[in-house]
C-alpha cells in the first residue's frame, strides 16, 4: 500500500499533511487559504475554506487525469459534390455525437472549469477499434443509423469520422475552487462535508459521493464525481426531515447524519445504482435525555457521541441494515469520534482493539501542544493498559482536540502487541513550523470549535446565532480511502480492564476546565491560560512544545496497516529511518565506521591467525550430521495417497568445507522397509505448496522434472515445514556454493502462487549447440509475493504484485520463510499483497419459482468454483493458505467478461456455455461471481514504488558491461496508461518519477529491446511500435500500428536484442519477420508454437517461455519454463524446446542474462591479430562517429570483394538483410574445415566485407557489431573484449 496522508488544519486555517511514510508535517501550498473542514480520500481532499467555498485538492500523480472529448463529422454523398457537408434535412447534424442526436461542433466544446486545459488540438481518429483505417478515418454506411464499415462500397451514401481531443486536469497539488453553481438552487454556505461511498462500486479510485451540510441544516450531495471528473458536476439538495448539523459517510453504503434536535438520520437505499440513496430513517439518540452531537461512520460501524460526551457504538450495522439494532455505551468520555480507515471490514471486530491513536493535545494557552501517539489494544495484556490510560487521560485533558487516527487491518495478536509496544515506546513531537505562528491569534476554528464542544447543552437553541466561522458541531471526519474503523472513543472502550483507571481520569473535571476556556476562547485572542488545567502533570509527561494548535484532522485518506511502520511516533530515530526508507541497498549502519572496522579487523585476524598455519591439523574432525523427522509423502504409485514416512537429511562435509548431503525418505511397502533418496546437490528446487489442509512442499531433481512428478512431502505444522525448507534450502545452496544475493545476471521467475525464484545462469546456458539442460537449473526462493518480475543485467529488478503495486528489488536475499542464515539482515522489508478469491453463484430457471438455487440433479453446485466441479460456498471458502487473511466481505463482482446485469447475473442456455450479461428467452441458467479480497503479509528484499499501480513493465536489456547511465524502464498502469520511468540508474534503481506517454487507447503489455525498440499491445489486442525511442529521446515520438496475425488478439510481447515475439490469447507464439534497422516494424508474423502462456526474449535474443500442456513421463504440467534451443544470430527462431521447471509457473525473465557461452580461445599466434580485428570492429560498431577506425577498415581494396561468393550472395539476397547474412555465415561455417591460420586470414577479410556491407546498406553499427561478434563466435574464435 502506498503511503497515504493524514490531513490537518491548524488554528490558523492552514492545511498540513503528514504522510505515513514521512515523519513531519508538511504545509500545503496555497497559504492564503484558510480552511475549516477537510475530508480526504486517498487521492484527493475536499475542504471548506474560510470563504465558505468548497475546494478540492487532488494529489499529484504521474499519470494525468485526462479525458477524451469526441465528436463525429457526418457527410453524405451526392452526385455533384460527392461526399460533402450537405446533408438531407432529415439527417443528423453535420457535427454530432455518436448517436447523431446531439449537435456538437468542434468549437462548442468548453472546458468544464478553469482547472482543465486542452492537451492538443482536435484531430481525426484514424483507427477503428484499434485497427488503423486509411483515408482520414472515415467509415461508411448506406444511411445514417446503420452499421459503419471501413471500406467504401458502391452503396455507401454516408460516411462519418471521429474527432477527438483530450483535456487534462491541471490543478493538481493545489487547492482548486469548486465553481459555484449557476443552475439550480444555490446552496447556502457549507458547514460540514464528508466524502465516502467509494467502495460500493468496483470502479477505480475516484468515484465517490460527497455530502455536505449547509448552515441552514440542508443536506447536499455532489454528483458526478469520478476519476475523469474529480470536481463533480452539480450539487443536488437531498431533503431531510429536519435540520442537519453534521454528516458522516462511510467508505461503502453507510450515511448517517445528526439533527439539531439530537436524533440521528440514516440514509437507506444507497447502492451501486443509486448512490444518493432513497429515504431517511430517524434513529433516536442513544440516550433519551441528551441528544447526539456527533456521528462517525465506517464500513460496517457507527459511532456516536452525545452531548454529555459519552461514546456509543451502534450494534448490528451493515449494508442490509444501515440503521443497526441498538446502542452500546462505551467506557470513557470523549468529545468526538473519528473513524479512520480499515481495509478490512470484517476484521473490524478483532482489530478495533488496536488503535493507534493520535491525540492532539492542546493546552489552553497557545503554547503547548504535542503529538502523542498512542496505541490501544483492547484485549491486550496489562502492559497496554497504561497506554490506554494515558490516552484516555490525554483525551479528557484536551477534550476538544483529541482526534483519532487509526487504522489497522489484518492484525493478529502478536502483531498487535508488538505494534502497541512500539508506539508506546515512541513518542514524538511534531516537528514543524512553530515559531512563526505561535504568537498569532487563532482565528478560524480552534476557539469556536472548542467553545462549541464545551457549550453543548446550554446552546441547543442558539445555533442560529453562530456565524459560519464556527463550525458546526460536527467534528467528525470520515475517512475515505480504505475502510477502516477507529475512533477516539475506541480507545477508551478498548480497554475494558481499564475501567477503574478510566474513571479516575474521566473524573478530571472537564466541565470546569472547559467552560472558562470556552469563554475565554470565544472572547478572542490569546486565551487566558487555565491554570487549573495546565497544572496537570500530564503536561510534563508529554513535554511542551511550541507549535500551532491543530483545529482539524482528517485521517480519511490515510491508510495505515498493522505492519506499516510509522515514523510519526519516533522522534529520536527519525532522521535515520527516513533516510533508510528510500535508500535501497545501503543503510547508514552499513556504512558506519565501526562496522567497516569490524569487517576489516576480522579478516585481518583470520589472516594473521591462519595464514601460516594452514598445515596444522583441525581440532574437530568433520562428521556426518543427520536430522530426522516424520512427514507424509505423496506416494509415487497408484493409488496415490499420503503415507507416513520417516524423513532424514544426512549432511557431511568434504575436506574443502563444501557440504553435501542426502535426503532419505523411509517408507514401508508390503511390510518391507524401503527408502527413496535424493542427493542434495541434485535437488533443483524446493517449492512450498501451502494450502489450507496440508503444509506441503515439493522437491524436484532433474529426473523428477522430466517426469513432472516431484517428491511431495507434507509436514505436520507450518512451522515444521518452514524449518525443513529453510534447512534444505541452506543445504542446497551450500552444496552448490551459492551464498548471498543473486547476481545481476540472475534469472527470475514467479509461480502462480506468487512465490519468487531466482536462478544463477550457468555460462553454458545459452551455449550452442549444447546448452545446459533446463531441468538442471537450480532455483532458490527469494522472499516476497509478486505476480511478475523483470530485470536486466545491470541489476535493476522490479516486480508487480497481484494488487498491481510496483516493487523494486533492494539487493537483499531471503525473507519470507527463510530467516536466519538464509536471509540477509538488511534490505528485507515488509511486503503485502492483495488478491481476490472468486466463487460463483449458479441458478436455474424453473416455471414455478423462476430462477432459484434449485438446480437439476445433473447441475453443478449452486455455489461453486468457475468450473462448477468444486463446491465453494461463502462460508466454506477459505483464504488460499494460512498466510492469507480476508480483508473484505463477499461482494458481487460486476467486472467479468461477458458483462452482467444490474445484479451481477450472467445468463446462458445451460451451464457450461458462454455467458452474456442480459437475459433472453432461451436462457435457463444464470450465474454471478462473488469476490472477496484477501491479503498476505510477508517479508522480502522489495521496496514499494508508489503510487501508481502497474499492469506490466519492461526494462531495457543490455550487456552487463554497459556503461549506460540512465536505464530505460517502461510500464503500463493498471488503467492502461503507458509510462516511462525517469531517473532509473544502477545507484537508484527505483528511479524518480513517471513520464506519461499519451495513447489513444489503454494498453496491456509492453517490452523494450536492446536497441530501444519499444513494442506494446493494446487492450484490444493489437500491436504498436513506438518510433524514435533512443537514449536521448527516451519517450520516443509516436506510435505505429502493427496488424496482429489474422484473427488473433495479442496478449503479450517481448523484445530482445533484435527478435520480437508475441503471444496471442489463444496461446500461439509468433515471431516477427523482416525486422531491419531501417524498417524496425518488420513485415509479417511467423507462427512458432502453440500452448504458450508467456514469452521472454533476452539480451542475447534467447527465447524462454512459460508453456502449457507439457507432457512428462508421469504427468502433464501447465505453466512450465521452456527454453528455445538452437537460437543463433542467424537462426533467431531456434529449432526446438527444452523443458525446465514446472508446472504452476507464471512468469520468467531472463533479461538479466547477457553472458554468452564461453568459446575456445584461438591459438596464441593468431590471437593478437584476431583481437585487433575484433577491436576495430567493436569500436567501429560501438560508435558510429569514429570515422577514423572505419576508414582504415574501408581501405581494403574493392577487388578483394569481387569474385567472392559471399559478396555476390549479399547482392543476390539484396534487401533482406538477416537472410543474406545468415547465408553468409553458413557458407563460412561450411568452410570451417581448414586450418585455423588460413581460416583466420580469410576471416579478417570477411570482417571487412561485412563492414562494408553494413555501410552500404546503412545498417546500424549495432548490427555490424552483432554480426561480427557472432561470426567470430561461429569460428570458435570470439574473445570477449
Amino acid at each position, binding site marked *: 500500500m502506498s503511503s497515504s496522508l493524514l490531513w490537518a488544519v491548524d488554528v490558523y486555517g492552514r492545511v498540513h499533511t503528514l504522510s505515513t511514510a514521512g515523519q513531519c508535517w508538511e504545509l500545503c501550498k496555497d497559504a492564503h487559504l484558510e480552511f475549516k473542514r477537510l475530508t480526504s480520500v486517498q487521492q484527493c481532499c475536499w475542504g471548506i475554506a474560510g470563504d465558505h467555498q468548497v475546494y478540492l485538492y487532488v494529489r499529484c500523480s504521474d499519470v494525468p487525469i485526462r479525458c477524451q472529448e469526441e465528436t463525429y463529422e457526418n457527410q453524405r454523398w451526392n452526385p455533384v459534390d460527392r461526399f460533402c457537408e450537405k446533408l438531407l434535412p432529415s439527417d443528423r447534424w453535420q457535427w454530432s455525437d455518436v448517436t447523431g442526436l446531439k449537435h456538437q461542433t468542434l468549437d462548442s466544446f468548453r472546458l468544464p472549469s478553469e482547472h482543465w486545459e486542452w492537451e492538443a488540438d482536435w484531430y481525426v481518429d484514424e483507427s477503428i477499434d484499434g485497427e488503423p483505417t486509411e483515408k482520414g478515418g472515415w467509415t461508411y454506411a448506406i444511411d445514417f443509423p446503420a452499421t459503419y464499415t471501413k471500406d467504401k462500397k458502391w452503396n455507401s451514401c454516408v460516411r462519418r469520422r471521429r474527432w477527438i481531443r483530450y483535456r487534462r486536469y491541471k490543478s493538481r497539488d493545489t487547492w482548486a475552487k469548486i465553481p459555484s453553481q449557476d443552475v439550480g438552487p444555490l446552496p447556502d454556505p457549507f458547514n460540514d462535508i464528508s466524502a465516502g461511498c467509494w467502495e460500493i462500486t468496483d470502479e477505480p479510485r475516484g468515484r465517490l459521493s460527497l455530502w455536505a451540510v449547509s448552515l441552514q441544516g440542508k443536506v447536499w450531495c455532489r454528483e458526478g464525481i469520478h476519476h475523469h471528473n474529480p470536481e463533480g458536476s452539480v450539487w443536488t439538495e437531498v431533503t431531510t426531515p429536519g435540520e442537519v448539523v453534521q454528516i458522516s459517510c462511510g467508505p461503502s453504503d453507510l450515511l448517517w447524519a445528526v439533527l439539531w434536535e439530537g436524533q440521528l438520520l440514516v440514509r437507506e437505499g444507497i447502492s451501486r445504482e443509486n448512490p444518493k440513496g432513497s429515504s431517511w430513517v430517524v434513529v433516536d439518540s442513544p440516550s433519551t435525555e441528551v441528544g447526539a452531537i456527533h456521528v462517525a461512520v465506517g464500513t460496517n460501524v457507527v459511532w456516536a457521541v452525545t452531548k454529555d460526551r459519552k461514546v456509543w457504538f451502534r450494534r448490528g450495522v451493515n449494508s442490509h441494515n444501515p440503521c443497526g439494532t441498538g446502542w452500546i455505551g462505551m467506557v470513557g468520555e470523549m468529545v468526538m469520534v473519528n473513524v479512520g480507515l480499515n481495509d478490512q471490514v470484517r476484521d473490524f471486530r478483532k482489530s478495533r482493539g488496536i488503535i493507534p491513536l493520535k491525540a492532539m493535545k492542546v493546552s489552553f494557552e497557545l503554547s503547548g501542544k504535542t503529538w502523542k501517539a498512542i496505541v490501544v489494544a483492547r484485549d491486550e495484556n496489562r502492559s497496554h493498559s497504561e497506554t490506554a490510560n494515558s490516552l484516555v487521560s490525554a483525551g479528557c485533558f484536551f477534550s476538544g482536540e483529541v482526534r483519532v487516527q487509526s487504522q489497522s487491518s489484518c492484525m493478529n495478536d502478536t502483531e498487535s502487541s*508488538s*505494534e502497541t*509496544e*512500539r*508506539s508506546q*515506546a*515512541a513518542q514524538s513531537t511534531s516537528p514543524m513550523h512553530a515559531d512563526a505562528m505561535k504568537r498569532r491569534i487563532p482565528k478560524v476554528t480552534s476557539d469556536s470549535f472548542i467553545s462549541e464542544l464545551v457549550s453543548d447543552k446550554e446552546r441547543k437553541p442558539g445555533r442560529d446565532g453562530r456565524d459560519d466561522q464556527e463550525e458546526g458541531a460536527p467534528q467528525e471526519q470520515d475517512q475515505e480511502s480504505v475502510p477502516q474503523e477507529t475512533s477516539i472513543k475506541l480507545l477508551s472502550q478498548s480497554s475494558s480492564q481499564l475501567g477503574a483507571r478510566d474513571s479516575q481520569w474521566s473524573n478530571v473535571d472537564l466541565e470546569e476546565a472547559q467552560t472558562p476556556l470556552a469563554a475565554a476562547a470565544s472572547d478572542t485572542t490569546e486565551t487566558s491560560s487555565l491554570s487549573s488545567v495546565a497544572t496537570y502533570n500530564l503536561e510534563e509527561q508529554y513535554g511542551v512544545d511550541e507549535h500551532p494548535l491543530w483545529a482539524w484532522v482528517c485521517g480519511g485518506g490515510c491508510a495505515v496497516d498493522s505492519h506499516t511502520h510509522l515514523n510519526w511516533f*519516533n522522534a*529520536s*530515530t527519525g532522521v535515520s529511518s527516513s533516510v533508510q526508507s528510500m535508500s535501497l*541497498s*545501503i543503510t547508514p*549502519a*552499513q556504512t*558506519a*565506521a*565501526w*562496522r567497516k*572496522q*569490524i*569487517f576489516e*579487523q*576480522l*579478516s*585481518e*585476524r*583470520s589472516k*594473521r*591467525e*591462519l595464514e*601460516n*598455519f594452514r598445515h*596444522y*591439523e*583441525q*581440532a*574437530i574432525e*568433520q*562428521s556426518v*550430521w543427520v536430522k530426522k523427522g516424520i512427514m507424509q509423502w505423496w506416494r509415487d504409485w497408484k493409488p496415490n495417497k499420503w503415507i507416513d514416512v520417516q524423513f532424514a537429511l544426512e*549432511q557431511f562435509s568434504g575436506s574443502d568445507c563444501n*557440504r553435501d548431503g542426502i535426503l532419505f525418505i523411509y517408507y514401508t511397502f508390503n511390510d518391507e522397509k524401503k527408502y527413496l533418496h535424493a542427493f542434495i546437490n541434485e535437488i533443483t528446487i524446493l517449492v512450498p505448496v501451502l494450502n489450507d489442509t496440508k503444509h506441503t512442499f515439493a522437491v524436484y531433481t532433474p529426473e523428477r522434472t522430466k517426469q513432472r512428478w516431484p517428491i511431495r512431502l507434507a509436514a505436520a505444522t507450518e512451522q515444521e515445514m518452514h*524449518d525443513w525448507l*529453510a*534447512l534444505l534450502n*541452506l*543445504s542446497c545452496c*551450500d552444496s552448490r556454493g551459492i551464498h*548471498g544475493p543473486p547476481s545481476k545476471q540472475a534469472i527470475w521467475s514467479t509461480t502462480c502462487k506468487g512465490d519468487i525464484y531466482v536462478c544463477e545462469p550457468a555460462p553454458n546456458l545459452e551455449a550452442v549447440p549444447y546448452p545446459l539442460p533446463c531441468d538442471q537449473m537450480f532455483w532458490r526462493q527469494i522472499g516476497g509475493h509478486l505476480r511478475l518480475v523483470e530485470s536486466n543485467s545491470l541489476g535493476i529488478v522490479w516486480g508487480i504484485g497481484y494488487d498491481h503495486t510496483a516493487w523494486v528489488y533492494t539487493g537483499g536475499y531471503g525473507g519470507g520463510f527463510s*530467516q*536466519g*542464515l538464509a536471509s*540477509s*539482515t*538488511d534490505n528485507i522489508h515488509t511486503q503485502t499483497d492483495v488478491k481476490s478469491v472468486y466463487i460463483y453463484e449458479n441458478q436455474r430457471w424453473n416455471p414455478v419459482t423462476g430462477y432459484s438455487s434449485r438446480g437439476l440433479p445433473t447441475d453443478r453446485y449452486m455455489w461453486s468454483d468457475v468450473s462448477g466441479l468444486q463446491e465453494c460456498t461463502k462460508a466454506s471458502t477459505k483464504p488460499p493458505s494460512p498466510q492469507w487473511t480476508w480483508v473484505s466481505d463477499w461482494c458481487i463482482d460486476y467486472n467479468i467478461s461477458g458483462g452482467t446485469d444490474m445484479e451481477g447475473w450472467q445468463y446462458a442456455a445451460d451451464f457450461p456455455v458462454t455467458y452474456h450479461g442480459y437475459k433472453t428467452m432461451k436462457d435457463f441458467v444464470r450465474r454471478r461471481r462473488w469476490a472477496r479480497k484477501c491479503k498476505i503479509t510477508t517479508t522480502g528484499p522489495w521496496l514499494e514504488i508508489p503510487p501508481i499501480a502497474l499492469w506490466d513493465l519492461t526494462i531495457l536489456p543490455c550487456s552487463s558491461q554497459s556503461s549506460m547511465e540512465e536505464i530505460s524502464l517502461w510500464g503500463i498502469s493498471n488503467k492502461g496508461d503507458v509510462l516511462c520511468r525517469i531517473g532509473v540508474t544502477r545507484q537508484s534503481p527505483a528511479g524518480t518519477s513517471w513520464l506519461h506517454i499519451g495513447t489513444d487507447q489503454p494498453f496491456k503489455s509492453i517490452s523494450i529491446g536492446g536497441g530501444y525498440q519499444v513494442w506494446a499491445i493494446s487492450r484490444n489486442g493489437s500491436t504498436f511500435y513506438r518510433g524514435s525511442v533512443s537514449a536521448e529521446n527516451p519517450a520516443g515520438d509516436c506510435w505505429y500500428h502493427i496488424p496482429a496475425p489474422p484473427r488473433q488478439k495479442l496478449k503479450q510481447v517481448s523484445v530482445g536484442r533484435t527478435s520480437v515475439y508475441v503471444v496471442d490469447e489463444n496461446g500461439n507464439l509468433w515471431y516477427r519477420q523482416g525486422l531491419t534497422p531501417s524498417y524496425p516494424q518488420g513485415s509479417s508474423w511467423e507462427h512458432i508454437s502453440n500452448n504458450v502462456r508467456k514469452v521472454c526474449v533476452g539480451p542475447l535474443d534467447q527465447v524462454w517461455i512459460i508453456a502449457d500442456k507439457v507432457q512428462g513421463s508421469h504427468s502433464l504440467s501447465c505453466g512450465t519454463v521452456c527454453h528455445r534451443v538452437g537460437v543463433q544470430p542467424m537462426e533467431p527462431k531456434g529449432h526446438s524446446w527444452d523443458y525446465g521447471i514446472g508446472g504452476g509457473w507464471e512468469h520468467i525473465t531472463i533479461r538479466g542474462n547477457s553472458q554468452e557461452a564461453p568459446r575456445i580461445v584461438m591459438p596464441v599466434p593468431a590471437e593478437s591479430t584476431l583481437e585487433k580485428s575484433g577491436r576495430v570492429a567493436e569500436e567501429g560498431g560501438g560508435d558510429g562517429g569514429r570515422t577514423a577506425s572505419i576508414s582504415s577498415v574501408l581501405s581494403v581494396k574493392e577487388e578483394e570483394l569481387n569474385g567472392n561468393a559471399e559478396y555476390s550472395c549479399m547482392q543476390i539476397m539484396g534487401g533482406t538483410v538477416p537472410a543474406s547474412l545468415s547465408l553468409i555465415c553458413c557458407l563460412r561455417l561450411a568452410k570451417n574445415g581448414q586450418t585455423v591460420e588460413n581460416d583466420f586470414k580469410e576471416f579478417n577479410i570477411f570482417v571487412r566485407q561485412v563492414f562494408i556491407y553494413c555501410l552500404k546498406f546503412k545498417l546500424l553499427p549495432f548490427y555490424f557489431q552483432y554480426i561480427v561478434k557472432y561470426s567470430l563466435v561461429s569460428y570458435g574464435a570470439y574473445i570477449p573484449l
Partner: protein
Amino acid sequence: MADDKDVLRDVWFGRIPTSFTLYQDEITEREADPYYLLLPRVSYLTLVTDKVKKHFQKVMKQEDMGEMWLEYEGTSLKWHYPIGLLFDLHASNTALPWNITVHFQNFPEKDLLHCTSNYVIEAHFMSCIKEADVLKHKGQVINEMQKKDHKQLWMGLQNDKFDQFWAINRKLMEYSVEEGGFRYIPFRIYQTTSDRPFIQKLFRPVTAEGQTHTLGDLLKEMFPAAVTSDDGEKKYQVVIHGIEPMLETPLQWLSEHLSYPDNFLHISVIPMPTD
C-alpha cells in the same frame, strides 16, 4: 558490501594455531614432540584436546597420566572459558602459535574445575546459554525450545557445525523491533589485573530515551579505566574475538554478532602492550 551474516561465519571459523608442549617435569618414556592444532576460538579446551591427550599418551605410562590440564606462562587455563577468550586475555600480542604447556600431574584444584567428561562441558555451556537468554528474553526463548533444539545447539558446537548451531541459535538472537534490542545484554568483562573473575551486571542495549548504547557506554559504566585515563593515553585494549571494535559500535549489534556460542559477549580488557 559484506553482509552482517559474514561476521557470524568469521567468528565461528576463527582458529588459533596452537602448539602443545608437555611440561618438562612430566615423566615420559621418551621425548615427546610438541603437537600442533588449530583450535576453534568459540569452543572449549577440553572439548577439542582429545587429540593432544592421545598424542602424549603414546610417550607416557598410563599410571602417570592424571587429568590433563593446560597452562600458559604460569597461568592455568580455565576450560570453562571459551578458547578465544583465553587467548585474547592471556596471549594476545604474542607470537603465534600459542604455546600451551600440557600437564598431567598436580591438578591445580584451587584454580580449575575438574572436567571429567564432555557432559560437564555441555552442562556448563547450556547453563550459560540459559543465563544469557534469561537476560535477553526472560528465558522465554530457550524455555520454549524442545530438548532436541538444545541438543542441536550443543552438537553444533561440539562438531563445529555452523549451520546446525545457527539454525537454532538465530532464535535466541531475535528480538522485536519495537524494543530496539534485548532486555539486557549478556556480557562479561575480563581482566588479568584483577582477582575478580569478571564483571557482569545488568545493562540495557538502549537508553530510556531510546538512544542506542555503544560499547563505549558499557565500558564507561563498568570499567571506566578502559576508556579514559588521566593523561589521555590509551592504557587498555578492549578485545573481542581477537579484534578491537570501535567504542562507537552499538552494543546490541555486538551482542548479536560477536557473542560466543554461549550467547555471552566475552570482552577482554588487557593492558596495552608496552612496546
